[in-house]
């Protein structure tokens, strides 16, 4: 019994939208920093931390959904994307710490552009039409 695929997905809602918006805002902020030759600043690191918390919350919501018997359309890909997703902000954090130049900000920007793509792919692997 598959519940309505598009509305019943635990990774499709206000929380997922919030992670996408937050990630894009952070990407824009760090892009401006990179263009202005600024190293990663405090707002970028705080933003990465907040983004990571939101993604962890998303992962917990997804796992709770699994616990209640809901199943993703492509389980393998879904867990792959989920694990990758929660690793992205820490990766950006570490690389930004290693590179205290404008290129550190560019790294934060690049990873924050990838994150929304992974969120969307995550949603697609949950709701596969006609599996």
């Amino acid at each position, binding site marked *: 019994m598959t519940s309505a695929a598009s509305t019943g997905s635990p990774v499709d809602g206000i929380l997922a939208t919030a992670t996408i918006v937050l990630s894009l805002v952070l990407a824009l902020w760090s892009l401006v920093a990179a263009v202005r030759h600024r190293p990663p600043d405090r707002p970028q690191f705080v933003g990465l931390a907040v983004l990571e918390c939101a993604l962890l919350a998303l992962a917990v919501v997804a796992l709770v959904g699994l616990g209640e018997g809901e199943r993703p359309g492509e389980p*393998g*890909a879904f867990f*792959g994307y989920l694990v*990758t997703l929660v690793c992205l902000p820490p*990766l*950006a954090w570490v*690389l930004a*710490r*290693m*590179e*205290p*130049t404008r*290129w*550190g900000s*560019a*790294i934060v920007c*690049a*990873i924050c552009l*990838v994150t929304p793509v992974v969120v969307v792919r995550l949603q697609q692997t949950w709701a596969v039409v006609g599996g």
Partner: protein
Amino acid sequence: MADTDAPAGRPATNSGPGRLLIAVYLLFAVAATSRAGLQIATRFDEAPVAYLLSALAALVYIVAAVGLARAGHAGRWVALACCSVELVGVLGVGVLSLADPGLFPDETVWSGFGSGYGYIPLVLPVLGLLWLWRTRHAAR
């Protein structure tokens, strides 16, 4: 914490823009490895050529990232070889996948010149080669 030992103005391959390049290579290594691993593990029979090619691409991305990160003379040669293989691969597979779609029944990272990945697979080796050229004096 900048751990570069290259003289000023001659950056090593693993600092500055190079670090951004390594980050993107890492992302592609993860993406291609997990995708190829999943495809080979779950439905290898459907498109073995495409999936083996994905695995090869994944391996090349990993080795390229390591080569750039290691800097040094050997690392540069490894990175140079990987970027060249990638460029040939993405161009070759791009042309082949357009000319004869039956060759690759399922998508690979390099299909359609990397169109499934925003053409980044096409741009990445070019940026890698440009970066190696820019830093060519660093390893001396």
